[in-house]
């Protein structure tokens, strides 16, 4: 019996180690590649492609005006940019704020902004996107979230990339910025950092890419041809990415610190857990939908499967954690078994140290400053953060099994913005609102 237990411990150690090494590899993939591979071009072509920006918003009264103003300030000919603010009919507050800002822009002679109001269900982001897609008229459709700070040159970047490389889908970088807001924000910020800076490039190279939710540019004809977004999936972005990958569509990832779209960390732990639960549940849904099975190569299918199964694996690991505590304090194993079972610990340590270096890289790139106390904060928060992620995974599995498929919205407060400039509420004020 003991031998079976030892074999089990070694098997779990091996699986966890392999998974961690693979994750670490993807996390650092971009740093092992030529820096120019993922960068934006330094010289822009003359604008040729026209863009329709979709701005789905629900209960975003606090931030929507700032986002619209930012879109009005992009460095691209206004007649080549159409902006559609997408709201459900019951969201009177957001509609009022958006229309007020659009009216203000009209008075300044800007006629390229309008709202798209839908009153049918389901009330979720993919349905809103599909509703807006029907109204889009330009060559390229791009999605921004209601709290996004997009770079003014982002259309120039994508126009150049699409023209020069003849690609129809471009995922540009998204970056959470407020790394000092809460105990978990630095870790959340760095997750985004590594995801868009590195892992996305790996996914793109393999050709099985779960796309991000915003700053993603599609050729409008292409997106219309494949039928738009799946409205039953909580992570419609990941699903459409895999669907496009299965079609053999080449997807270009551009991550350049200069042009990232800036976002914020969920303001409260509750919001963070909700957001993560939605993502995890969405991945489970995409896994069950089976789009990944249509990918062309075994490597693509394997990568997609591993990515989509991860939330469930994380949930299992959360349960295993309790068992590992027992084994640490109450189980005497042969030295070799104990030694091998420490390998995952070593790799976790590598992951943590990678994150710490990433913090310095992130802050350096964005003109911020990381301090040793910030690294100490990372170290203290690291383990609780993993537990929160495991909890969110368990919650996602439970919701999926229980048939709870509703959209748990993440509140946005504009903590990544200069509130005076953008009209966002202060962080504390909005925390109170969303609590």
């Amino acid at each position: 019996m003991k031998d079976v237990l030892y074999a089990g411990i070694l098997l779990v150690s091996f699986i966890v180690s392999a998974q961690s090494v693979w994750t670490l590899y993807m996390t650092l993939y971009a740093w092992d590649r030529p820096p120019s591979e993922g960068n934006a071009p330094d010289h822009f072509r003359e604008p040729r492609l026209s863009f329709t920006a979709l701005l789905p918003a629900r209960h975003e009264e606090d931030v929507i005006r700032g986002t619209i103003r930012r879109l009005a300030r992009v460095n691209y000919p206004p007649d080549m940019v159409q902006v559609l603010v997408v709201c459900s009919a019951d969201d009177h507050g957001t509609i009022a704020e958006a229309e007020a800002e659009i009216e203000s822009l009209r008075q300044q002679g800007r006629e390229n902004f309008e709202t798209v109001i839908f009153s049918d269900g389901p009330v979720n982001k993919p349905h809103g996107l599909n509703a807006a897609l029907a109204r889009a008229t330009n060559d390229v459709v791009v999605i921004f979230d209601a709290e996004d700070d997009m770079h003014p040159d982002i259309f120039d970047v994508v126009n150049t990339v699409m023209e020069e490389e003849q690609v129809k889908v471009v995922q540009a970088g998204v970056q959470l910025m407020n790394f000092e807001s809460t105990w978990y924000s630095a870790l959340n910020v760095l997750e985004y950092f590594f995801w868009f800076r590195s892992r996305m490039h790996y996914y793109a190279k393999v050709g099985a890419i779960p796309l991000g939710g915003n700053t993603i540019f599609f050729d409008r004809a292409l997106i219309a041809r494949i039928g738009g977004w799946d409205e039953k999936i909580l992570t419609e972005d990941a699903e459409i990415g895999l669907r496009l990958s299965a079609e053999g569509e080449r997807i270009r990832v551009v991550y350049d610190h200069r042009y990232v779209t800036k976002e914020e960390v969920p303001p409260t732990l509750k919001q963070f857990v909700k957001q993560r639960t939605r993502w995890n549940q969405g991945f489970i849904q995409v896994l069950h939908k089976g789009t990944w099975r249509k990918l062309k190569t075994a490597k693509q299918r394997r990568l997609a499967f591993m990515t989509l199964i991860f939330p469930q694996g994380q949930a299992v690991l959360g349960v295993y954690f309790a068992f590992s505590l027992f084994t640490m304090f109450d189980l005497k194993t042969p030295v070799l078994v104990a030694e091998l079972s420490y390998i995952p610990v070593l790799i976790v340590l590598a992951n943590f140290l990678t994150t710490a270096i990433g913090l310095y890289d992130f802050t350096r790139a964005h003109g911020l400053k990381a301090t040793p106390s910030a690294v100490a904060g990372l170290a203290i928060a690291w383990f609780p953060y993993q537990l929160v992620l495991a909890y969110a995974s368990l919650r996602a599995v439970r919701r999926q099994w229980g048939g709870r498929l509703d959209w748990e919205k993440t509140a946005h407060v504009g903590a990544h913005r200069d509130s005076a400039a953008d009209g966002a509420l202060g962080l504390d004020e909005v925390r109170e609102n969303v609590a």
Partner: protein
Amino acid sequence: MSHSPAGNTGFTSLEPRSTARMTRGSTMDSARQWYYQRGKLGTFALAFAVISGVVTHSYHLFDYPLYETDEGIYLERAWAIIREGRLSPQTYVYDHAPAGWMFIAAWVFLLPGHFEAFGNPVNSARVLMVILHAGSTFFLFEIARKFSRGGLLAPTIACFFFNFSWLAVYYQRMALLDNVMVFWVLLSIYLLLREEVRLFTGLWSGLAFGISVITKENAIFFGPAIFYLLSRRAKNDSGDSSRDFTLFFWLFAASSPVFAYCLYATLNGELFPPDMSFNLTHTHISLLYEMWYQLHRNQATLFNRHSSTPFLYTAWLPKDPFLLAAGTVAMVICILAGWRQRKVDPALLVAGLLAFGIAFYLARGSVILDFYVIPLIPTYALCIGLVADRAFKSLPDTTSRFLAPVVCGVVAAFLLLPPGGYLIKHGSSGQLQAADPYHVPLTFMQNEQIAWIRQHVPPNSRIISDDDIWVALHDVKPVFPYDESHWNAATDPQVRKIFGGGQWQDIDYIVLSNQMKAAMQLNNTGGQEQWMLNALDYHSTPVWSITRGSVSLAIYKVQNLSG
């Protein structure tokens, strides 16, 4: 038509394709500085270096030199891994980290016939040493070639010494941890000199270095030079952060094997000594205690002719004074000239620091054994090659083109022929003969010793012997389970139980060489070997002996009650 974005401060992506290729990975100091096509001539020179190394090291391999005690120790520990699933057949006292004999065990395990694949068990490991030497030669050639900007003179000279020096051939044939360590160290450096030092290249290099440290701990003395090389190669001239990750991963990978070793001690409850006692008058089985003990072991400096182990004068200089003298001078030149040129070309400084690290280790006055010179050989060879290369390059091209082959040819002939004695020397009566490594048979004496034991000694006899025959007596049936080395009988209480806790009356046979008797006397400062010396000197009679030159082997039957 194009227009530029605001804040154009990032990296260029529109650079010429050839340039883009050379700056790949972004972690290059200057990729062009390190990347050179080998070409047909280079490939030929490399092949010659590797083949000549294999020939000089494998010819007469099983006959010369004598099987060393330490070869036997590592073999018996490899035996323990394969046959008993533990790190040592006796109590493991953390005297050395185990990666070296784990590697030997893995090799032997793969061989058909395992320890007996090539006759005497030590031969199996010696074959591995030849294979590792071939690999080390390849790495040394490539390191020297890249350090000399693609030139072939430096690698050819470096590999010449590495392959032909008697000092090199003598020690590099032996199944010693130092030879395994040198292989890993050279691999670590070689990986850092690949065209592209990418993030994961740093990881593999660090891992190789970490393995070298847990193969033989003195590899740590190469650490500063290798890390300096890494930091230069990972110089961040393109502004991104790959350098941080590359340095981190090297350090992480290098420390992981060391961590695993410390973890092993921790899990066995042997990291700290009992009661945290680091009192050197009491021995403890503890990793940190052993490190503490080793740090406090001192003997007279290497340059003292009257020390108990004057290896510089008795073992090294007689074998190859030229390599030692020229290597020392070249090392100094490399450090001095390298320091001045370090900003444009760190190669000389790195080579000098590599040699200096190990030279410092040897010269600092701690306890050393004769074969500790092994890591010095490739680094001295490298320094000589690089200094010669720079010297000829400083001459006008036409002069250099003529002078280099002539000078090198003359020096090589001098060293290979009787004045140098690398290949041919004068015999005792003045006749020309091959140098000792290719001519003198020695190990047959040890094989005859083993054969005599098998023929005349009952397997249940309690035997004091040396480690070099331990595996031969324990792995081939009938085995001699009560054969133990004098060192273990003196220091390991578990082993001493075989001999009544240290009673000469409980010894049946003593199997030794004149070297072993000297070692027993040297190790008897605390009287721990006295009961065996008493048995040898006062209560035994020789039953077999053989002498060749300065080497004498013998077997003594102890006149005890059971006898």
